[in-house]
């Protein structure tokens, strides 16, 4: 098959990385505003409900910190992991990826733009959950600014994981299932205080990227937070984020041209 073999046509420029990322981010955020606000409410109410339940069991101290931090990060897991896995699974199954694959856009811009939009969309829900938790368990609110670091870093790790699951799942239903399971893991391993868990479960908890976000956040409730450990936890979160977004980008390339 050929079209005009006479002269070689000039290639149009590629879209550059950051402008393309910004365009995808803006479009995804507008999508999320229209379609996902009810789901953000669900995510927030779910976390608030879990904290109310745990109020009967947990009596303050480090356990209360873990519950509030875990419930707040759960909002991120719900949106960034679960919903993003569903979105990419659906986009792949319906042929929607063709749209991006026939535009001269770097794959990383598409994946990072979508992941960043989903992650930043979780910020208000995370904040509401954290404030409610602090009031419920009587924790200080002075350290909540740390969410400005926890949400993007845990968001990157979880969104990358969600995007990779959605893009790698052979069928759309499996993408949805993987997203749900990932969120359940974040719920069980993140919200329940680790002191009461058996050894194997604690080990599984250490493998979950959101755990480091939860730990970093929980530590800031202490009267004199150990900032070095907080920074280390956030560093782990960020490293996992880079890794999982790289895997997601690879998965996107693989899914887009097949």
């Amino acid at each position, binding site marked *: 098959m050929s079209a005009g073999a006479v002269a070689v046509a000039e290639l149009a420029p590629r879209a550059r990385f950051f402008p393309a990322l910004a365009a995808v981010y803006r479009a995804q955020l507008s999508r999320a505003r229209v379609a996902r606000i009810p789901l953000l409410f669900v995510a927030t109410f779910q976390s608030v409900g879990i904290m109310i339940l745990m109020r009967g069991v947990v009596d303050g101290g480090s356990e209360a910190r873990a519950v509030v931090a875990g419930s707040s990060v759960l909002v991120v897991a719900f949106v960034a992991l679960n919903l993003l896995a569903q979105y990419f699974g659906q986009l792949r199954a319906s042929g*929607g990826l063709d749209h991006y694959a026939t535009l001269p856009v770097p794959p990383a811009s598409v994946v990072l733009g979508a992941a960043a939009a989903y992650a930043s969309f979780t910020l208000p829900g995370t904040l509401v959950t954290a404030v409610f938790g602090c009031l419920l368990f009587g924790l200080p609110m002075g350290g909540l600014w740390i969410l400005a670091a926890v949400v993007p870093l845990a968001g990157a790790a979880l969104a990358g994981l969600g995007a990779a699951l959605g893009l790698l799942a052979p069928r759309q239903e499996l993408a949805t299932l993987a997203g749900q399971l990932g969120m359940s893991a974040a719920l069980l391993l993140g919200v329940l205080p680790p002191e009461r868990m058996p050894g194997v479960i604690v080990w599984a908890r250490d493998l979950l990227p959101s755990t480091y976000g939860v730990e970093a956040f929980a530590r800031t409730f202490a009267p004199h937070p150990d900032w070095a450990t907080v920074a280390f936890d956030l560093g782990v979160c960020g490293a996992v984020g880079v890794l999982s977004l790289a895997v997601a980008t690879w998965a996107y390339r693989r899914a887009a041209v097949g």
Partner: protein
Amino acid sequence: MPETRATDGISLDVRRGEIFGLLGPNGAGKSTLVRQLTGLLRPDTGSVTLLGHDLVGHPERASRLLAYLGQESTALDELTVALAAETTGRLRGLGARQARAARDAVLEELGLTEIAGRPLKKLSGGQRRLACFAAALVGERPVLVLDEPTTGMDPVARRAVWSAVDRRRERHGATVLLVTHNVIEAETVLDRVAVVDQGKVIACDTPAGLKAKVSGEVRLELVWRTGAPREVPEVAALAPLAVASGRRWVLRLPPDEARAAVAAVTGGPAFAALDDFTLATPSLEDVYLALGGRMKGLVKA
């Protein structure tokens, strides 16, 4: 598992500046061919050269040479018409200001300005299709690949599509590859057409040239009130020649035989059983059938 070949031994040459069509029923292999041309699918063997570029070796170059309108709109469905067009322009490499200007111009050109603020999924099928077409036009490309662009559109929207295509041909000699299973559209807008059936090109010529191949025949359509009165000898004689679907019979006959058949069914006792009949010159659908096309699914609309 036996080897499945979606397309096999196809060789096509599309000239610059022409509207070239791929006509065939669903499942004929048109979309596979288009996916190979747009870099979405690498052919197992063979070559694809677009404007001097080897697309088998460099599939990523396709996106810098052509704009593709696929059949799916899921990537854009939840965006407003304006944002869908603008974002697509940005991802086609336009700067922010250029993308906004191109967006406004294209929406105006296609008559979409009034619904620019509405999300695609809230629009009718035809309007949504037009909005996706608008996105395909933002950030000009020398080649447009349009996979059934006018599906679900009303006549006004169709006219907007074909006028926009014509303007791009006049302005900078854009080449258009159109995938369609719509016979009427193929006859009216295409310069040349390849008829695709079961993964092979069974003919390739201008619509008029193709129709000349079957010009020796006319098409007679008979619609019976309930069923064909086979007890009438003239009707019984026509039965083996007819392609029957329900109450409708389609016959392809030399003109004199067709005249005789019309006289027989309208004159004698068969007339009481006849609901309607039409006598017509051949269409591209007749060409498709005469060339041995075996699948149903071409539409006339």
